[in-house]
């Protein structure tokens, strides 16, 4: 047995790095789908750039006070609408200027990160759980169960996403981060259900599933140990890309006056305020927009990188 692993290791190394001395490398195990994907990801510049960006965004969201000493809610009307003109003011708390009420645009940018990320991450988690579960059940059991779940999914899918969330949000007079999360998750899960269902149907027919069944494995074991790990790849890709979309959706709803509202601090709230003053002062609108776009970009790039790693056929 040890001999066999040795030869396998040797061929694998020959393929990947034929010139490298064999002794210098750690013996490699036969890699799984996820191991392969990880090896791929580490070399992908899109993955590296986006994960560095996301790391910083998470850091800002968790410890905003590390990045600015200014208070995002403190307005000083003396500074109203003024933009710091002199160069070299980077590092000062107000280097991006002030908004209509004399609050530091930079401080609001930093403190707004948390709301956007909480909404997006929570919606993605809920949607992935609900969609993953319904899709799994639908795809695995098929028949009547599948027909019922699929029709319910169709019903929710038929309502335009933005429109549906607008209606849900109207039901709340007191809108917080959690109401926005609820509104987006309410209609968002259908996409994941469809993806999961498709993946499970494909995986279900694989030989190893038949083998597990023949060996007498129970339904929960087959679903969790054999089907789930192999059907998860497309769901993770779609979830990551959707996360970027939810950040944009929160901002859009806030812009329409239906999402978060002042005194909550979020990029959408500030963009909405800035859009009323676009002809007087563009910087109030521009900086949160740039921040928003960079964040969405980071998550979409991450999703793309993961997709490439998990599905080499697409390259």
């Amino acid at each position, binding site marked *: 047995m040890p001999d066999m692993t040795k030869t396998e290791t040797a061929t694998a190394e020959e393929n990947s790095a034929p010139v490298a001395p064999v002794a210098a490398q750690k013996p490699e195990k036969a890699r799984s789908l996820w191991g392969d994907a990880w090896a791929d990801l580490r070399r992908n510049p899109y993955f590296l750039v986006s994960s560095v960006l996301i790391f910083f965004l998470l850091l800002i969201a968790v410890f905003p006070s590390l990045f600015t000493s200014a208070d995002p809610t403190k307005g000083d009307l003396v500074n109203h609408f003024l933009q710091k003109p002199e160069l070299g003011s980077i590092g000062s708390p107000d280097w991006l200027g002030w908004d209509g009420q004399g609050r530091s645009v930079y401080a609001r940018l930093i403190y707004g990160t948390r709301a956007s990320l909480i909404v997006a991450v929570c919606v993605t988690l809920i949607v992935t759980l609900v969609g993953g579960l319904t899709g799994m059940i639908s795809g695995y059991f098929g028949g009547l169960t599948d027909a019922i779940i699929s029709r319910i999914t*169709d*019903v929710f899918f*038929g309502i335009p996403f933005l429109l549906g969330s607008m209606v849900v949000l109207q039901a709340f007079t007191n809108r917080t981060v959690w109401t926005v999360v609820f509104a987006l998750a309410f209609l968002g899960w259908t996409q994941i259900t469809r993806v999961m269902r498709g993946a499970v149907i494909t995986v279900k027919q694989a030989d190893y599933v038949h083998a597990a069944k023949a060996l007498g494995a129970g339904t929960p074991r087959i679903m969790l140990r054999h089907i789930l790990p192999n059907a998860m790849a497309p769901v993770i890709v779609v979830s990551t890309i959707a996360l970027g979309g939810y950040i944009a959706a929160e901002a859009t709803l806030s812009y329409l006056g239906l999402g978060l509202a002042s005194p909550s601090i979020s990029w959408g709230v500030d963009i909405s305020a800035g859009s009323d003053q*676009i002809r007087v002062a563009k910087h109030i609108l521009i900086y949160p927009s740039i921040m*928003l776009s960079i964040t*969405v970009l980071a998550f979409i790039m991450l999703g793309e990188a993961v997709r490439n790693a998990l599905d080499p056929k697409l390259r």
Partner: protein
Amino acid sequence: MGRYVARRLLQMIPVFFGTTLLIFLMVYSLPGDPVAGLFGDKGVDPATLAKLRHEHGLDLPLYQQYWNYISNILFHFDFGQQIRSGREITDVLGDAFPVTGRIALLAFVIELVLGLGLGIAAGLKAGKLVDNLVLILTLLIISVPVFVLGFVIKTVFAFQLGWITPNVSNYPTWDELLAPAVVLGSLSLAYVARLTRTSIAENLRADYVRTAVAKGLPKRRVIGVHLMRNSLIPVATFLGTDIGALMGGAVVTERIFNVKGVGGLIYDSLARREGATLVGVVTILVVVYLLASLLVDLLYAVLDPRIRYA
């Protein structure tokens, strides 16, 4: 094929009822009362309120309200009346839908032509410079939220260059609708380009393409007929569901350019709790969406002869 269409049409029935019921329940469970809203802050005596509510059938149990509503639409094509203005909702919809329909149509043409063009260019040169440029361009378009893009276009082309008017007039001409259409279609354009690119790059290695090349067919025929037909299937799926999304997604675009279309109507009726109007808009959107996805499935058989419907 006939049987397949019949089965699909039958499947559409529960989805139609389910979706309209869901949106109906959502709208009617909203706090606030459209009739009380007529009288503003002054308030109204309970007798008048009850009388008006009775006239509009708002005092019936919900399931009965839903049944009255949906049967009027199905059997008489009657969507009811707007409570505030007393106008027939069919008239209100008749004013709003053509405007949004024109924007959506323009947006659709833009995403079809540009999206397919960019996608084909990138797919045929996968991994080359063009491919990377298209990748970066589409990533940027996807990352910039629609309303930000709207503001950028409005600021640059209306305020700074003066090429377009910042607000669209009440009876807009086609050229006025171009800017909102570009904004509305941009996101889908990026998706179409990416889908086309992926699909073409993948099918370029397919056996039937190799066969076509080996037979000595001219390049134009290999790409135009053999490659395109199969590669267009995922794109067609996306475009089909996108028609409904374009109409519904017009809320933001229409607000930025001040268009009097479906988006504005949705926003107003939501604010005023005009449930009947809102449900009417969504009902039409759902029908459009259902028909478009049926059309797409039928198109599959045309695009890929390997797909046969029993």
